[in-house]
């Protein structure tokens, strides 16, 4: 199955029709994944407590509560409730937030830019640091500074995000006073999105949360890239490249790096999910007005439609991100791209 999808991924570059085939195949897969997510999301809401407690006060009598439950369909069998939910969900209606009294999807989407900005910023930090450090640590395994970095990366892996976050707030905001400790700062409205990247204040506010969020992945990727690169540097084709008299730069950054990146891309795609999950922690510590923060609040308030909407939106982001990762993988790896026209001759 995995092979089959990747097959499609590679052939997309060849013709437009196979691009279409890839996307439609991917769309079917995405819908299946989303269906499963929706079942899970919908079924946990029963276990989150009584939404009526939040909706109405203590003073409402039990009889009235039952009446309300019947009105809202909360007493119907699960399958019927789910079917009703699904029919609306397909049309983009994920229910109304009990707390905000607005469509849950709208509430989530309002907070989406802030979270994506956080994830994007962290991804940039991870790529910017892990690739050069990993590559040079593989090329110069005995260099003292790189050894120090590798040693520290082990520590980095073992420190939980919230600790990194709180420590960095303490050092850079409280003690040194260099960076703001909470919120997004000044943002700009751009095509309906709020963007913090474009103002100095917004950028300053991004530094600590993005660093804290990237701190879980950065050591992992440095170590992954280093290990892969070391293996690739030992390969026959790299030896052959040396024997051809190519420059070091070309051997390291074309011949070796391109092969190193293949497994890294795959792992990266999977880790996007982890990164999104950790936004909940990061956003809470930094009071970042994103989806994760909203989600925690929703859990506290047993705002089930909002919880369900969050899970579905996150699932969707994950599916989209992985599709993009697959496309990138197909671009880098030719064996993926052209699996159709296999070996001829001799």
């Amino acid at each position: 199955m995995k092979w089959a999808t990747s097959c499609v991924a590679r052939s997309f570059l060849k013709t437009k029709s196979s691009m279409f085939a890839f996307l439609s195949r991917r769309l079917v897969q995405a819908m299946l994944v989303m269906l499963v997510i929706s079942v899970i999301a919908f079924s946990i809401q029963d276990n989150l407590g009584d939404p009526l407690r939040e909706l109405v006060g203590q003073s409402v009598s039990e009889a009235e509560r039952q009446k309300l439950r019947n009105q809202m369909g909360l007493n119907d069998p699960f399958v019927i409730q789910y079917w009703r939910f699904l029919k609306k969900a397909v049309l983009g209606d994920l229910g109304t937030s009990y707390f905000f009294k607005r469509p849950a999807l709208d509430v989530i989407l309002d907070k989406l830019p802030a979270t994506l900005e956080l994830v994007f910023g962290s991804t940039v930090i991870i790529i910017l640091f892990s690739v050069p450090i990993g590559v040079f640590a593989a090329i110069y395994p005995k260099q003292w500074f790189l050894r120090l970095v590798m040693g520290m990366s082990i520590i980095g892996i073992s420190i939980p995000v919230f600790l990194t976050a709180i420590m960095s707030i303490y050092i850079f905001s409280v003690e040194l006073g260099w960076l703001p400790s909470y919120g997004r700062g000044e943002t700009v409205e751009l095509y309906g999105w709020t963007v913090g990247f474009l103002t100095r204040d917004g950028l300053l506010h991004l530094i600590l949360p993005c660093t804290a969020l990237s701190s879980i992945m950065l050591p992992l990727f440095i170590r992954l890239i280093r290990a892969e690169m070391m293996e690739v540097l030992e390969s026959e084709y790299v030896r052959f490249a040396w024997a051809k008299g190519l420059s070091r730069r070309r051997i390291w950054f074309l011949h070796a790096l391109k092969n190193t990146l293949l497994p890294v891309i795959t792992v990266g795609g999977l880790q996007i999910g982890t990164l999104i999950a950790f936004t909940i922690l990061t956003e809470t510590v930094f009071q970042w007005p994103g989806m994760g923060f909203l989600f925690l609040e929703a859990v506290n308030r047993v705002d089930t439609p909002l919880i369900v909407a969050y899970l579905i939106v996150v699932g969707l982001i994950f599916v989209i991100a992985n599709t993009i990762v697959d496309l990138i993988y197909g671009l880098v790896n030719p064996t993926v791209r052209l699996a159709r026209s296999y070996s001829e001759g001799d």
Partner: protein
Amino acid sequence: MSLLEVRNLEVTFASRGGKLIALRDISFSLEPGERLGIVGESGAGKSVAAFAILNLVSRPGYISGGEILFEGQDLTQLSPQEMRSIRGNRISMIFQDPMMTLNPVLSVGVQMTEVLHAHREINSEEARSRALQTLTRVHISSPEKRFDQYPHELSGGMRQRVVIATALLTESSLIIADEPTTALDVTIQAEIMDLLLELCELNNVGLILITHDLGVISQVTQRAVVMYAGRVVEAGPIRDIVRDAQHPYTQGLIDALPQQTSPGKRLNQIQGVMPSLSNIPKGCPFNPRCPLVMDECRTRVPAYTRIGSMRIACHAAGNTQRRSRPHLELSKA
């Protein structure tokens, strides 16, 4: 002037347990356009010798002594930059397994033309047409199509043709081929070998052919160097070596050739295995496996003896008695 003259080459590997000498006192030479075979079992140091010529012994190994004179220039004295301008330009190498030597994520065209770009002032149009020409010379059909393809789209034989073409791109005067046909299908081994020989001859390119198969070397090279445990044990014109091998190891290798055994009989083999680098026996390294071992062999490393045009490292060299041993009667090839 010889094309290549290796004198007393020594390669050392610095391991945690101390220094291991992988190659000791390796000497051989090659005239322009000549073909030389280096033969020996796995672990004899053939490939290390090949990589040492290009100064590409992988760490922690390094050249710890001797000279490598290529067209009169000592390669061991060159700067990394100067050495780089020799690799792939004046001396090219062909590796054993074409499945592994081509980079899987770069197209054939990129991997060929980059050699030209590394060594010549050449624009991509010219580089492309040069590569296409060379692909035609190695009998690759529809070179334009192959140029844009990736290694996984080519068969093993075709990949090795690409590798050979890459070696021929820059008009090197020496090609080192490390078991160039071992990894290929038996059906195309001869074809690829013939192609390699033909092109070397045509361009007057010297060829060092590394193999464990004395049979192949006896057919295609003019001279041979037999290696054992990091040393040259016997060297000379191939005809003399095949007809009149003096070293018991060479004789063993010849005996082990299938054509030395009549059909239905068990193939001959040399008893025992090659010692590891860290465990080379005292005296002559071959002594534990040698059918002619004498006391002297266990204590003293044999010096080279010249017999005719051959150079042999054996205490028993020239001792005719041993040839009466039944299982060593051979050399009708």
